[in-house]
Each structure stands twice: as structure tokens, then as C-alpha cells.
């Protein structure tokens, strides 16, 4: 049975609970879960520590909104050129990094530099992005339902369904991908790149593929995030955005399908449960991460599956 199916019962949560806080936490979990799932593909499966997903997240938010706003097309139609744009950008950044054989730390630093470059462009391109003030998003994604016609997605329940369905689609696709020969090639690259090459795998091409897929998923998450929060700002492209997703994947369990979602839930929910001041919260957050990396390097999902194997 695919672990993805474990997400399906979540459709029932709004039936039993009308708690706005819980549902809002879950909506953020689903959207950030998409971002984390994308990072998990390139890091957890293909072993490449990118720092570009934060930028792709923010670019996805800006690009989708700007296309909707300037061209008057629907959210869904605007996603297409956004995805194509992020894909091309990923190919350029990835091509540069992988042609120069940047690995591990060096790959992280150079993708971080590209990510900062993107953020600085957004901050300074005032006429389009409104700089540090950010943009208010007043448009809504719409949906066509038989009988009801075109309806706008607003309010907690509609967003809950949209976010969960999006996450479900992304995890199903990820599951299919990592179980395929492409996933096996990612694993070979993570294991040892030289070995992968001697096994006949064009590692350049597959690293580029993993990098591009992860960034497109990050862009999708960013687009949903911007429209859900009704606000887009340059900090959504920041290093913090990238680090948050990394923390989610490490905590939940890298290289597992549901690990990033579990991590997203804990790190979105935790700040609401722990009512500390911002400083102590940041410290607690850091302490939890260090503890996780020391005690359970495979994350929560990794720990659970080990218990299952033992018993």
C-alpha cells in the first residue's frame, strides 16, 4: 500500500472539527508540505543540497500573481508560464552548478548566491514588485464545478480542500517518480556519483532533472501560499524560507514520501502550541533541530518505520 493513501483520511478533518486554528495550521502544513516534498526529491533522493527552493517558492508567488494581475487570466492558467519560467531558470542555474561539478557545500553556497540574487532583484524592482512593501493579492483562484459554475476559492474550507488536493497530487507524482527508474538513478547519484557514472547513468542530466522538479514544486507551493495569505513579500524568497523547508525534511525524515509532510505539520503547528516569546521560540526551534539530527538522523518517519521493522 502506498503511504500516500494515509493522507486521504485528512479530507474528513473539516467534517469533525470546525476549529479554525487547527484547519489553518493544516492548510499551511499542506502548502509548505509541497515545498518540503520538492526539496526532499532533490536532497533526500538525489542527494544534492540546494538552497534555491526558497527563491523558487517566492518567484512562484510573484510570477503567478503578476500574470493573473497584469493579463487577467485565471490562477491555474498563470501557473503554466510560471512553471515554464522556473523550469528554464532551474536549467540555467543547475547547468552552471553541475557543469562546474559543484557538490555538497559548494553547490549549497552557489545556489544560495543565486537565490540571494533573485531576492535582491525582487526587492529592487520596485515598479513591478513594489519592493519591500510587497503586494496585496486580492484575486482568488477559481474553480468550475458542474452545476455551480465558476466559484472562487475563499474561506477556510475551500482552501483546505484545495491545499490538501494539491498536496495529494504532488505526493502521488513524487511517489511514482521515486519508485521508477528515475528514482533509482537519483539513489545511485546519492550513493556515489562516480559509481553512478560507471553504471552508465548520465548524472549531469539526472541531477538537473531533480533540481528542476524540486524548484517547480516549490514554485507551485509559493503560488498557493501567496494567494492563500493574500500577501507576497521579498522575504518569501529568503534563506529563512529555504532553511524552514530543510528543517521540515530533516525533522520529518528525508528520503521518505510522508516525512516532509510530517515535518511541515510539526514546524507549522509547534509555534502555536509553544507560547513563548519570539526569541525563545527561535531557540527552542534550533534546539529541536539539533536534537533530531543527533538522535534520529532519519527523522520521525524513519524512526517509526524502524520500530515497525523491529516489532
Amino acid at each position, binding site marked *: 500500500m502506498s503511504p500516500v493513501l494515509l493522507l486521504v483520511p485528512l479530507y474528513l478533518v473539516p467534517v469533525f472539527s470546525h476549529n479554525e486554528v487547527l484547519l489553518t495550521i493544516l492548510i499551511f502544513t499542506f502548502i509548505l508540505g509541497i515545498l518540503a516534498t520538492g526539496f526532499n526529491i532533490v536532497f533526500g533522493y538525489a542527494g544534492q543540497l540546494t538552497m534555491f527552493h526558497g527563491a523558487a517558492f517566492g518567484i512562484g508567488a510573484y510570477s503567478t500573481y503578476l500574470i493573473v494581475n497584469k493579463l487577467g487570466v485565471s490562477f491555474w492558467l498563470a501557473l503554466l508560464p510560471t512553471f515554464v519560467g522556473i523550469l528554464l531558470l532551474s536549467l540555467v542555474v543547475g547547468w552552471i552548478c553541475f557543469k562546474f561539478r559543484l557538490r555538497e557545500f559548494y553547490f549549497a553556497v552557489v545556489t544560495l548566491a543565486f537565490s540571494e540574487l533573485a531576492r535582491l532583484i525582487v526587492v529592487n524592482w520596485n515598479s513591478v514588485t513594489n519592493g519591500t512593501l510587497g503586494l496585496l493579492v486580492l484575486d482568488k483562484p477559481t474553480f468550475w464545478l458542474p452545476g455551480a459554475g465558476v466559484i472562487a476559492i475563499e474561506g477556510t474550507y475551500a482552501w483546505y480542500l484545495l491545499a490538501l488536493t494539491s498536496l495529494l497530487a504532488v505526493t502521488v507524482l513524487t511517489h511514482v517518480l521515486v519508485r521508477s527508474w528515475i528514482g533509482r538513478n537519483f539513489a545511485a547519484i546519492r550513493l*556515489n556519483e*562516480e559509481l553512478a557514472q560507471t553504471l552508465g547513468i548520465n548524472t549531469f542530466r539526472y541531477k538537473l532533472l531533480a533540481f528542476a522538479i524540486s524548484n517547480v514544486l516549490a514554485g507551485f507551493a509559493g503560488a498557493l501560499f501567496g494567494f492563500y495569505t493574500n500577501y507576497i513579500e521579498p522575504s518569501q524568497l529568503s534563506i529563512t524560507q529555504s532553511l524552514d523547508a530543510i528543517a521540515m525534511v530533516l525533522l520529518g525524515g528525508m528520503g521518505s514520501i510522508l516525512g516532509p509532510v510530517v515535518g511541515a505539520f510539526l514546524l507549522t503547528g509547534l509555534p502555536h502550541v509553544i507560547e513563548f516569546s519570539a526569541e525563545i521560540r527561535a531557540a527552542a526551534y534550533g534546539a529541536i533541530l539539533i536534537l533530531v539530527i543527533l538522535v534520529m538522523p532519519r527523522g520521525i518517519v524513519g524512526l517509526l518505520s524502524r520500530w515497525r521493522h523491529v516489532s
Partner: protein
Amino acid sequence: MFLEVDDLTKRFGGLVAVAEISLKIEQGEIVGILGPNGSGKTTLLSLLAGLLVPTSGRVVWQGSPISGAKPDTIAAAGIVKTFQNPQLFAELSVYEHVMIASHLALKRLLGSRRPGTFFGARSADRKMQTRVDHVLELCRLTAVADKPAAALSYGEEKMLGVAMAMMCEPKLLLLDEPASGLGPQEIAHLGLVLKDLREHGTTLCIIDHKVAFLAEFAHRLIALQNGKKIADGTPKDVLSDPTVIAAYLGRHHA
């Protein structure tokens, strides 16, 4: 000619690791390459497999030049190299490791129809599984197929490296010190596996320090010293060659 190497040279800064080596390998042969530490054995194999780019000279594989080609291109053309120390995932099983190596086999089987497997191509999966089973049997790993790599002995780990290489269906298999670190029993076992690989039609090129092990089943030995070829011939001739004896035992024994 199966494999032809002409004046192959590799320099690392001022150090000449491989100096103007020329050699030929015929199809079906088992060639042993011996030489003391630092004589350029591993560098030579890495040059053949494309992991290093030669400074000068050329490698011709089945009629086409391959020197400077990328390792994955060379692997796809049929030359696969194993690593001296196997690179394994502790938590993945032996079976899963060999499956990871199935890229070339699947590519040959399906070509551009591979994306179809996303929507379930059970027959291709089954063919790959049969092939994995066959390779595991060839490498005497069937009994430990479901064990995680962490539970293997060093000998089994090295054999798993060979199994992963065999999954690529190489025409020429380059083995980097397959016997190093193995006990006498494991070496005997390795000998049996290598004989099976030969029956299987794979041409082998093996580097090792263990002269007796190489001499036992290699058709031909090539001796290296300081990056140069000092002897090339039948095991008996090479091992009685005064230059080889001098290189191994010191000059006054010769």
C-alpha cells in the same frame, strides 16, 4: 581489435602516474595487471573507464576512439569498472543495490519507451527482476539477497560491487583489486565467481597485488612499475622476467 591502448599518459602536475602505456585486450581474455603500490594500476583503469581524462594517448574500443569520453558513455558502450572499496547504502538490501544498477539494462530493453513504465510496465519490471536474480546467482549472493548491506561481510560487499557492475552487462569488466582485504577462503570463492564470469562471456581485466591469485587464472599478465609497462605476456613469462622480479623483490635478487 577489442580494446587498444596507444601511448596513454596521465600526469598529475609533475607526477607522471601513467607513462606511455600501450596494450591490447582481446575479446574473451582475462588480463591481470600487477605492480607495486603507486605503479599506476588504478589510474590506468580509471583512464579506461573515463573517470580520468588522459593527458595524451588514445584508447580505441571496438574500432572507435573513447579517450576523453564521459564515464557513463563508456559504460553504455560496454566498459564497466568496479571500485576497490565498495560504495554501499547501509540500509538498502543486496537486491535493491543490484536493482539500482539496472539503468543500462532497462535502457537497452525499452529505450525511449521508458516513460511508459510510470504507468506500470510489469513485464519490464519482471525482466529486470529475473536479471537481478541471475546476477545474484552468478556472484553467489542469492542467499543474502534480502539482507541489508550493513550485515554483509567484507567479501560479500566486494562481491556486491561486482554484481552491480555485472548488472550493466559489460563486455569488458575492469576489476580494481577484487582480492584485497579478503581471507584465503573468500579469495578461493572469488576465483570461482571470476571463472563463471568468463564462461558468461565477459572479458576481464583485473588489477591486484596478489600475484599468485592473478597468475592462477589470467591468460596474460601485464606488469607496471612507476607508471610504465615493464612486461606483458603469459603469467609464466612475466613472473620469471628479471625486471619484474627486480621491481617486486629489489634489484639484487634479479
